[in-house]
């Protein structure tokens, strides 16, 4: 049984996530097999692109139920970018302006679009500042640069679920944590040494569970 499964939802270019995770946590594989995902010690759920499109895909291919089952359990779960946003209840990112798209609702809250005079998408390296000590950020600076590329951000209803913030306009939630469920808006797999450190921290969180 591999320790970590990177979930292939069919809508993300996950080769770079695999390459980076494997560099620090060799016991990792990519799979869309529901049984393998259920048997993993921990899962990483990457995603890019449209919330609605991916929400539709995971409903159609049956991954939604598997993910919900995992999220109800205690297994370490790391959502990346869209994979973090999908942890929320709903998103403004919809083809139909009046009907928000439903997420996995593991963490209550909404996914919103950047407004105002900001350049959108928010692209590039920006500082991530954890609001408290959390094992995901062990060994990193108080404010560490990570690579972002997104137009939407997650806004949890409960402030306790906010792990880190990043300044853009005011500031937005760049990392979430609710027990073993974690999400990051940035791309650790594209964030050089800092990103590799975050993945190895996730490995440590998994090791501490068993």
């Amino acid at each position: 049984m591999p320790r970590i499964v990177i979930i292939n939802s069919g809508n993300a270019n996950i080769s770079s996530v695999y390459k980076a995770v494997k560099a620090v946590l060799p016991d990792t594989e990519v799979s869309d097999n529901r049984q393998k995902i259920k048997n993993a010690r921990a899962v990483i759920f990457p995603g890019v692109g449209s919330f609605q499109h991916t929400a539709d895909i995971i409903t159609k291919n049956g991954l939604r139920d598997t993910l919900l089952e995992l999220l109800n359990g205690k297994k370490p779960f790391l959502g990346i970018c869209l994979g973090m946003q999908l942890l929320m209840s709903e998103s403004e990112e919809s083809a139909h302006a009046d009907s928000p798209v439903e997420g996995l609702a593991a963490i209550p809250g909404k996914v919103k679009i950047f407004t105002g005079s900001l350049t959108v998408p928010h692209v590039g390296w920006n500082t991530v500042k954890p609001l408290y000590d959390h094992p995901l950020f062990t060994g990193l600076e108080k404010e560490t640069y990570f690579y972002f590329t997104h137009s939407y951000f997650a806004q949890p209803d409960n402030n306790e679920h906010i792990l880190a913030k990043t300044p853009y306009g005011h500031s937005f939630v760049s990392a979430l944590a609710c027990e073993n469920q974690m999400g990051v808006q940035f791309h650790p797999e594209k964030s050089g040494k800092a990103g590799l450190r975050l993945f190895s921290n996730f490995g440590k969180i998994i090791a501490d569970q068993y």
Partner: protein
Amino acid sequence: MLAKRIIPCLDMKDNRVVKGTRFVDLRDVGDPTEMATFYDRQGADELVVLDISASQEKRRTMVETIRNISDVLFIPLTVGGGIDSVSFMAEILSAGADKISLNTAAVNNPQLIKDGAARFGRQCIVVAIDVRRKNRGSDSEPVSWEVYTYGGRTATGRDVIEWARETEQLGAGEILLTSMDADGTLDGYDLDLLRQVTSAVKIPVIASGGAGKLEHLYAALTEGNAHAVLAASILHNSEYAIADIKAFLSSKGLPVRPVDNHN
């Protein structure tokens, strides 16, 4: 703070990195994978690879080279050069690229921007625009720039502002703007051009063409309002290391990602 990005650009021809002046007089400057590794270690924020070769075998060799380069990189990689279909984009992305740069194919078939953004997300689509000044600008005729395709060989008659806005509406996530007049000259970026394009669109604009001194990069990021600077000659000549550029920009008060944050 969102950092200003320093992006080395590798122009690749027949699996070698080359660099010209004003799009001609190409000279060999190195091996693509070696140079990618070098710039990543130096603290580059991203890497752009543009394949300008025209061989029959291009698609296959390009996929192979991109796979080799992406194997050594943990920073974003943008790839362009003759990519003219969604299936070609998918191949390059699965070889490890993060973004696709569209140029001539986007002008010939703007629907490609829309299709690419719908399939891979807007963050994945960079539209590269090569332009040349049409006039020097006067009271009666304001300065304007014309869009060129096919590596600068074909004038399209299209105005840069109009095309930049259209690409944004179609779903481009970033614009990579090259001044052909300035390219390789080391005389500085075309700041008028940058100001006009950055104020016409909401998406990030990457300045390209003309960097020769540290002050040029600073001017593009401040006076020109560019979000990032692409640099080729200034880096390939080994006149400046990325750390020198970042130290200079930082000393002038611009936010940059520290080099020691990396390797």
